[in-house]
Structure formats: structure tokens, C-alpha cells
């Protein structure tokens, strides 16, 4: 911890950053995001295996952008998000310094995004086993039971849009759900609209979702919404060999095609 704090202190001193986004301890054992604007606050900075939040989402926030030079303490999901977002040209207006702590508890300060890319490719995360187990289970059900499972899940959705808020890939200034001419998605928190909302969100994340699972983890009613995108990521890799958040350059899966893409359902 001391190592990390010293490193960040150094970055503050030599003027590389004037805002550090990291983690601090909180009421529960789950560390929470913290924002360090003064060197005197560095003491609260920690990094553990339980640091789950994908902090890259904050790089879209105007209040954060104002700081100009931003340091970000990234877990692997965050790094992946940073790679994907860079490939989508999202960081043209900020200067950022990326830090991570590796398995050996060494602090790494990346000098550019290429280094991040190399690190991500060397440490590319697998799908979580828990998610895969649940997906397998769902796929073993009959279609009617799957429909029942998901519609009951979505009936609990209250449309708080926390899934959208925590998603680093959901950076559109105006979301489809806010368009009302036409009203694509019903605004009331009722099942049909909820279902459409989650399908729409998954589709708009196709090939872009970096699989951090934040949407499912923070859902206040506990809907495993991330399963939709996990499944999609699996499919995209299987069908087209693409991985999101893997390379700085390259098209995303739905923005590109191969003339010999295979499918078995078009007559």
C-alpha cells in the first residue's frame, strides 16, 4: 500500500496528475471509489483484490474531466475498458496516467496506451466460472422456462438505470431510452419496457462490452443483467473471433464483417 501511495504522491509532486481516481476503505469490506485532489489525501488510497468498481466510467464525467490531468488506478477490467474506449476515440480531451497493481503487488505506471494494451493481452481475463455455470444452466432450460426466468427477473427492474450509469461503454450523451420521437422504449418500469430496455442495451454493447460484470454486480434488485453481454461476448468470439477491449486498433464486431460469416438460419 505504501508503495502505491508513494508512487501517487510522486505523480502529484511532479505535476503529472492533479486528480487521482482510486479506491479507499469504506463501511463494508468492499473498497469504494475515491477521488484524491490533494496530496494530503493520499493516505486513504488502497488496492486489494476486492477493488471491483470499473473506474474508467468516471473518465466520461464532466466534473472529472475538468481536472485535466487524471490518474486512474485500474483493475484488469478497467484496463480492458480503457483499451476499448481508446479504440473508440473517447479520450481525445483528457490527459490520463494509468496505474495498476499486478499479482506480485508491484505498482505499474503505464507510460502509454500501447503498454496497457500489451499488459491486457498478457493478462486477458477469462469469463467468470460462476457466470458460465449460470449460463449453462439457463441454456439447459426449455425456451418457455428461460422466458419465464427472464421476464420474472425483468419484472423486478425499476429502471434506475444504474446498469447504464456504471457501464464504461455507455457514454452516449443521449441514450436511446431518452429518445421519445418515437418512443422506442416505454419509460414506465413495466416488464415489456424493461425487457426492451435490457435487450436494447445488450445489443448496443455488442462487440463493445468488456465483460467487467459491473451492471450485474450493482443492480439494486439483483438481476444478472451482465449475463446477456457475457453470452454475447462468447458468441462473438465463437462466430467471428473478435474480443473487445483487446486491441487499440481494429473494428468492433458489429462494425465490420466478413463475406463468409456463417449462420444457419437465413433462408
Amino acid at each position, binding site marked *: 500500500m505504501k508503495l502505491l501511495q508513494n508512487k501517487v504522491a510522486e505523480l502529484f509532486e511532479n505535476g503529472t496528475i492533479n486528480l487521482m481516481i482510486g479506491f479507499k476503505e469504506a463501511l463494508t469490506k468492499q473498497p469504494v471509489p475515491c477521488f484524491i485532489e490533494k496530496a494530503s489525501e493520499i493516505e486513504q488510497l488502497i488496492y486489494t483484490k476486492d477493488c471491483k468498481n470499473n473506474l474508467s466510467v468516471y473518465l466520461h464525467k464532466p466534473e472529472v474531466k475538468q481536472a485535466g490531468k487524471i490518474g486512474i488506478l485500474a483493475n484488469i477490467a478497467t484496463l480492458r475498458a480503457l483499451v476499448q474506449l481508446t479504440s473508440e476515440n473517447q479520450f481525445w480531451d483528457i490527459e490520463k496516467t494509468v496505474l495498476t497493481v499486478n499479482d506480485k503487488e508491484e505498482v505499474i505506471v503505464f507510460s502509454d496506451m500501447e503498454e496497457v494494451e500489451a499488459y491486457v493481452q498478457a493478462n486477458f481475463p477469462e469469463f467468470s466460472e460462476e457466470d458460465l455455470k449460470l449460463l449453462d444452466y*439457463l441454456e439447459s432450460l426449455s425456451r*418457455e422456462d428461460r422466458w*419465464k426466468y427472464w*421476464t420474472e427477473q425483468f419484472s423486478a427492474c425499476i429502471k434506475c438505470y444504474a446498469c447504464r450509469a456504471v457501464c464504461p461503454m455507455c457514454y452516449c450523451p443521449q441514450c436511446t431510452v431518452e429518445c421519445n420521437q418515437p418512443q422506442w422504449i416505454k419509460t414506465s418500469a*413495466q*416488464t*415489456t419496457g424493461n425487457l426492451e430496455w435490457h435487450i436494447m442495451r445488450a*445489443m448496443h454493447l455488442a462487440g463493445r462490452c468488456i465483460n467487467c460484470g459491473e451492471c450485474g454486480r450493482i443492480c439494486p434488485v439483483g438481476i444478472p443483467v451482465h449475463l446477456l453481454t457475457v453470452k454475447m461476448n462468447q458468441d462473438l468470439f465463437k462466430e467471428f473471433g473478435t474480443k473487445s477491449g483487446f486491441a487499440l486498433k481494429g473494428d468492433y464486431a458489429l462494425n465490420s464483417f466478413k463475406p463468409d460469416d456463417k449462420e444457419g438460419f*437465413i433462408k
Partner: protein
Amino acid sequence: MSEFEPKIVAFVCNWCTYAGADLAGTSRTQYASNVRIVRFPCTGRIDFMLLMKAFENGADGVIVSGCHPNDCHYTSGNFHARRRWIVFRSILDLIGFDTDRITFSWVSAAEGKKWANLVDEVTDKIKAKGPFTDLDKLDGVQLKELYDEAITK
């Protein structure tokens, strides 16, 4: 009571399938009248939300059709569309939506006969399945219940 007549919405591209349907018409090919055709510039323009809206507004089945691969008027619209449908279909499948109610097809401007057969086939299939009611009973529950049984340890 009269036989169930399904409502089928067809989203078709302007250059191939629409022309194909036109050909079916001009050559006086008889086919089921259950289909409502919506013409788009290209299959690449057919957003998945349009399909959702069609079902929400009472469609019993949907046909999506456009140019054969390599025939797209805009060179690659149908290739993009194809990838989109692959992903979309798989998500719908995971959710348990009845994907049999959506039929994807390539129908060229010369394939009036294929179009007529396609519509007949889909109409028969949807007739056999009956009206689409999956979305009807979803709304209006006040205190929500989570479905438990599925998440097993």
C-alpha cells in the same frame, strides 16, 4: 369462429426483396395476404428495435429479408445486417423469446416465386403456432416477484 389469421410484418430492402415482392404481384402469383410489407433502403437499416416494436404492437410473426450476400446495392449493408441478426437472435434465444416467429431470408428481385413461397410458409408456421401472446400478460403487476427457482447454488 373463423380461423386465426396471423399478422405478419415484413421488413424488406428496397432493391431486392421489395422488387421481388413486386414481381410476385405483377406475375399474379397468389400468396397469403397476412403480410404487411415495410420497405427500407437496405437491410442494414433495419434496426432490431423495429422488430421489438412490431411484436409489441401486435405482430404475430416477422419476416426480415433483403439482397443475397454480395448483391447489396450499397455493397455491404446486408453483411452488416447478417452479423447483427446473428447476435440479436442469440440474445433473444437466451432470453427465451420465440425466435421461430422471426424469419430471415434473402430474396432477390428475380425471386418473386421464392417470396410468395416464403410468405405462405411463414403464414402456415405462425398459424400453427397461434397468436403471439408472450408480451401481453407482462405488465400491470404491482408488487414484483422475482423468479427464484432458476438460480441454483
